[in-house]
């Protein structure tokens, strides 16, 4: 069984992969945060509740398996945490 399970959700994986890639760029990170925290974003409230978790998985230097293992030790999983990365609606 992989980190993403038997039936991977490509949208979740894409938000995680490209979110991590863009998070390394300060300007992209700033714009992502502004987009997700905007009152116009339908997931803004949920993002505020899970912001520390989202930041953790986007900033983590760990690989997918290690990160998943770390999250599992806290009764979380990468599969579930990635679901909390808000989508980009329109553009950033």
């Amino acid at each position, binding site marked *: 069984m992989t980190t*993403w399970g038997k039936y*991977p959700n*490509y949208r979740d*994986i*894409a938000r*995680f*992969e*490209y979110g991590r*890639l*863009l998070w*390394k*760029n300060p300007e*992209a990170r700033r714009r*992502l945060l502004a987009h997700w925290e905007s009152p116009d974003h339908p997931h803004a409230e949920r993002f505020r509740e899970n912001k520390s978790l989202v930041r953790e998985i986007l900033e983590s230097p760990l690989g997918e398996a290690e990160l998943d293992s770390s999250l599992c030790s806290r009764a979380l999983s990468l599969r579930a945490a990635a679901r909390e990365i808000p989508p*980009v*609606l*329109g*553009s*950033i």
Partner: protein
Amino acid sequence: MPRRELRYPSQVENWLQDWGGKIHEPAELVLIGSGGLLWHAAQAGIEIPLPENSMDVDPVTDSDEVAFLGYEAMIGSEFEKEHGWHVNLMPAQVLNEMPRLAGPRFPQKLRPSARGGSLYPRPPVSQVERGEPRDKLHAEWATQLP
């Protein structure tokens, strides 16, 4: 009024030329499905439309610059309003699950950039094994490519 939806090879060619001019570092992307077929048709000078329109392109990239452009071109973006179709970034994992169309029939091509970056589209990935009627139509259409 721009053409609504994606159907002609020149639409993908023009889009990649545009993005090639916006990046500063060499970058690669893989186009999955109809977007890749259209790009290769454009390289062969073919401007025959796909049998069915597409609403998006599905690229995979490891370039943050290209990913950033992709995030500016998602569904509901100004890019979509302008072009009539959008960009749907896909995770690299999908490449393990689809056959890569490779070989001399699908050569790579360097795209020079006005700012010194380059965009290197890689051989596209076929969706024919997904088996949807549209995939089969597009695979049949692709047999016209040299």
